[in-house]
């Protein structure tokens, strides 16, 4: 016989804030209704911020459960990669290690963030299928979870940048403070990217591998491993540099940290591409949000 239950269900959900509002779900074909529902979805996800935080924390803890040094494998593997590639490529490109390694460490850490955000973002809804079909929760929460998880990973990798900077005594310029607005822009862009790719990826299952290939090509086209200054004497086509959204986004972080002055033109390019991305993501999410539960 199992211990008697005194019929207590004393945790009353109505005690908690915000759960008392009636929910109205209307099938709407107009953009106004759709945008209101999408906006509610996002604000609801923000309200559930502690859940997003715990989910991403558990994701990382789960990945390294049973491992000795746990999440510090993230730091370790990045450090090994930066070190190995740094010494090899500084030879190949005839670069001074002391100036190349700080450049490379920032580039690799930031690019890892971009490539995992796009890869994990395009499966953010299909991977949360169980949760989506079990209860009503804001869909953007699943996107926010992917972004938050990758910010935590980024946090582990920043240690490598700090170490390299300390070893080579690289001093960022005063413009380094512009990294703060750049970080904010990165978070917003990552969220928009995840929402957009996740929605499209839920409907078309070919999207995740396609995104993977595109990001791979972008990696070679974008000055990640190489600095445009290094190859300028070869008369390289500047279109990959000047109009490359990835380059602009990388450079608003990388430039000031490496002691270069703030470049308004690069910021302009980064902002224009970000606005386009946010508008596209908004349209895709508004349009497809009610259907995502059917697709996953």
């Amino acid at each position, binding site marked *: 016989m199992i211990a008697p239950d005194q019929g207590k269900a004393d945790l009353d959900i109505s005690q908690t804030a915000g759960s008392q509002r009636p929910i109205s*779900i209307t099938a709407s074909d107009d953009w106004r209704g759709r945008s209101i529902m999408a906006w509610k979805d996002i604000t609801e996800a923000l309200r559930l911020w502690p859940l997003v935080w715990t989910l991403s924390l558990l994701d990382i803890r789960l990945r390294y459960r049973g491992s000795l040094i746990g999440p510090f494998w993230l730091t370790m593997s990045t450090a090994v990669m930066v070190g190995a590639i740094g010494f090899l490529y500084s030879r190949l490109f005839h670069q001074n290690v002391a100036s190349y390694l700080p450049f490379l460490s920032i580039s690799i850490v930031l690019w890892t963030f971009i490539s995992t955000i796009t890869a994990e973002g395009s499966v953010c809804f299909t991977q949360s299928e169980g949760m989506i079909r079990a209860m*009503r929760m804001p869909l953007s929460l699943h996107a926010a979870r992917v972004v938050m998880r990758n910010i935590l990973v980024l946090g582990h990798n920043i240690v490598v940048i700090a170490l390299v900077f300390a070893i080579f005594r690289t001093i960022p310029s005063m413009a380094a403070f512009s990294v703060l607005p750049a970080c904010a822009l990165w978070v917003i862009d990552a969220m928009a990217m995840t929402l957009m790719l996740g929605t499209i990826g839920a409907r078309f299952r070919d999207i995740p591998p396609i995104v993977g290939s595109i990001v791979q090509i972008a990696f070679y086209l974008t000055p990640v491993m190489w600095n445009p200054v290094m190859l300028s004497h070869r008369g390289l086509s500047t279109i990959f540099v000047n109009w490359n959204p990835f380059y602009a986004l990388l450079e608003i972080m990388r430039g000031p940290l490496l002691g270069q002055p703030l470049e308004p033109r690069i910021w302009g390019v980064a902002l224009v591409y970000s606005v386009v991305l946010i508008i596209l993501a908004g349209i895709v999410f508004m349009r497809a949000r009610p259907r995502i539960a059917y697709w996953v």
Partner: protein
Amino acid sequence: MANLIIDNVSVAFPLYHGESRSLKKTVFAAASGRLGEDRKHRLVVEALRNISFELHTGDRLGFVGSNGAGKTTLLRTMAGIYEPVGGNITIDGAVTALLDPGQGMNFELTGRENIRLRGLFSGFNELQIKQLQADVAAFAGLDQFLELPVRTYSSGMVVRLGFALATAIKPQILLMDEWILAGDAAFLDKARHRLETMVRGAEILVLSSHSADIIMQWCNRVIWMDGGQVKADGTPEEVLGAYLPPDQFAQAMAAASVAA
């Protein structure tokens, strides 16, 4: 006060075949100019058609109907998981849906971590989460298992955890699918006791079941679903009398009077 208003709701599932689900076919169809036609003639399954009813505090509604009649889809729609293609749903009150035993739990995480996630979803603070963990542990009788990943649980234990979790956070509207009957007899008694306490607290219960006994004992209203539409709506005696063969109906009535 809890209310649940379903107004002229329709739900349709798009049918994407293996190939047409891929981008390849859509791109090819667009290239050959057939996309418009494709969209117009898109094959859909009309899972629910023009369903309307209202539930208010104290209602205990049972769904009966054959497999594929739309009972589970309707429960999912009432929970707000599937958004309808037509009509309007108003949910006034905190909803809990016991739709599948997994309950959206992460089977890699421990029982305690899953309870914590549920608490956070409901907007609980640390103290309330502690309370929730204690309550679920006591009710599900899983004390020593709570620190183990849910994937190591037996299916009965998953059901107990899911049920305890869903009912510990006192919902105003409880939507239940028939899997709850998978529990063992002792647990079923306990579950019924806990549910009855909850329903007595003047909330809404919606139950989908093939068991006439359960419906007779727990519900005061029954809707008979057929082909995605409401075929009959009334008291359990009326609807079950029409739905069940006479001998089974007599049996259910006898069982219900014994239980009462």
